[in-house]
């Protein structure tokens, strides 16, 4: 019974992790983290402004469906 409970708990944790990762990707938080990593910067107003500047035009070219 305990093994089953642990199994379910691990599966639930994994599912939550994936859901959070998906939301972070959809909401561009992951893209910002990659930008910081690539540019060797830490999160700040300036680095976020630089990220938006680099990211915005590419994002705005993406069509959204009807």
């Amino acid at each position, binding site marked *: 019974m305990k093994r089953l409970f642990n199994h379910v708990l691990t599966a639930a944790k994994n599912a939550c992790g994936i859901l959070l990762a998906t939301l972070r990707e959809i909401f561009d938080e*992951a893209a910002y983290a990659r930008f910081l990593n690539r540019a060797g910067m830490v999160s700040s107003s300036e680095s976020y402004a630089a990220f938006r500047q680099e990211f915005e035009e*590419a994002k*705005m070219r*993406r069509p959204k*469906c009807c």
Partner: protein
Amino acid sequence: MNKPLVFLVWGVVAALGAVAVGTVALHRGEPINALWLVVAAACCYSLGYRFYSGFIAKKILALDGLRATPAERLENGRDFLVTNKWVVFGHHFAAIAGPGPLVGPVLAAQFGYLPGTMWVLAGAVFAGCVQDFVILLFSVRRDGKSLTEMAKDEIGRVGGFVAYVAVISILIILLGVAALIVVNALKASPWGTFTIAMTMPIAVLMGIYLRRIRPGKVLEVSALGFVLVLAAIWGGQYVSQHDALARAFTFSAPALAILIMVYGFAASALPVWLLLAPRDYLSTFVKLGTIALLAVGIVVLHPTLHMPALTRFVDGTGPVFAGKIFPFAFITIACGAISGFHALISSGTTPKLIARETQTRMVGYGAMMAESAVAVMAIIAACVMQPGIYFAINSPAGVVGQAPATAAATISSWGFPVTAADMQALAHAVGEQTLYNRTGGAPAFAVGMAHIFSHSLGGETLMALWYHFAIMFEALFILTILDAGTRVARFMVQDALGHIYKPLGRTSWYPSILATSALIVGAWGYFLWQGVKDPLGGINSLWPLFGISNQLLATVALCVATTIIIKMHRAKYAAVTLVPLMWLVAVTFTASWHKMFDSDPRVGFLSQARVLAAGPASGATARLIFNNRLDAAVTGVLVVMVTLVLAESLRQWFGILSGAREARMKESPFVRTRFAEERG
């Protein structure tokens, strides 16, 4: 799992699906429970995914888990990025799920729940999911190339040019229709208008928070923005009850149309979109949350469908839009069954994120199934209403009359009883002055959604709040598409104009930005204005035009897919894309013929122009005549162009199959994935 058990499980799913589909299809007379639709959909999707997509993946596409994808080969941390398959799935679904699968099924519910449900299920499993899946895989094998580029490479220059023109046309018609839906939802609605107006300062606050207080914490700020939007919905009821404030936020349809055009231009041409960008996140947050909530609400409430399986309007005399069940049911519902627009997403961002070829099945086929499920929910939301109420909301004044008593009497005479008192009570319950003549599908969907939510979460007292929540959700969603779509179209026009005069192609050159923004807004604004001034409500003309152009793009996508399959020497399996292609050609060409030449003036653009020309002449009539002729010309041009692509594709197919032409594909060369080595 051992084999007999697998057979047993799938046998049970198949049997359950057959019973559910049979009940939905054959039950007549008594209303049925919405859960039958849910079970039918779940079984069809499971079987389609497990067996049909499995067959396509194995026999036709030969998905190769050892072949490196562009995300791996060209990884740059920006566009090309190896990403978890579930994350790509969510990302892809968020990009393809727009207002289409919500609005189309609501409008098509005038035929009853049966035609829409059957088309959504069969269309998705055999056409829409297949299109999204194969285009995604073919793009992955071509370094993430777009549909336009693939059409040019595999079919020829005509294919590329037509795909480009079709995309621009769809964008413009879509933006015009989408704006009209917002106008019809917000006209004479101070509560709704106030809520939507409040999203602008909320977005600015979110922007300040994102930049100054917690840089990059988008999820956090979206949750905060959502709470503020809920507060704005709550506050809207006090605005609607306050004389001066209610007057300030009450707009006529033409006034709202002008405001939306100004908004579209500003969002495209001025740097205000930097401030409004957080609204995009807010819209996505609300969209995903609401779809999930609606699914839960339907299962919890499992409501009864009051709309009959088939209505008398299958004969083409429907008040919501005119035209017979074939072909109009099949172009009215595009996004929930098959949408050419999805091919743009499947050949846009998504192929650059796929880690393994084998994942294209889950992302391409699977995400479209999820989109189709959203369309099933929209059918349920429309059909839980009493049919009389559904028709009172969706019928234009030009068909049922302006006065409440006249409209109620007309609708009741069709066999769908409704009284002016019923409509008044409903309008009061949702906090509106009136719900008559609210064409466009959004208000009807909002009433259905409010019904489901209020009966499963919060009771009748929250009906008005849920209604305005639904209106806010749809309007916010559509306005985001309006500003994003205007910019995408502007970039496309700038790219093209750059070939003629270089500075026009520079996206930072202000004269070019202003000119192309004005061009795009002027184009969709023209369709919007035409819809606002149309005595038949606008949707009657514009939604079929949008459906035709969207499915003509799907025709181009399926031509590309079939050409590649034949070039892959898999001609014996080409039916998987060829049959949906033939169906779409039959549907779109028939619909186009009807929209241009049908003798019924409610259906055919040219016959409506003739009827108007025979009547008393005035400036307004002359404009209506011109608009009808323009709509006919737009339809004709699109059909001619797609005919050219079809002819070019046929030439390719016969050339290859007869051996006269070499089957040369433009695939990227095979490179072994490093993941295979990592795993040993």
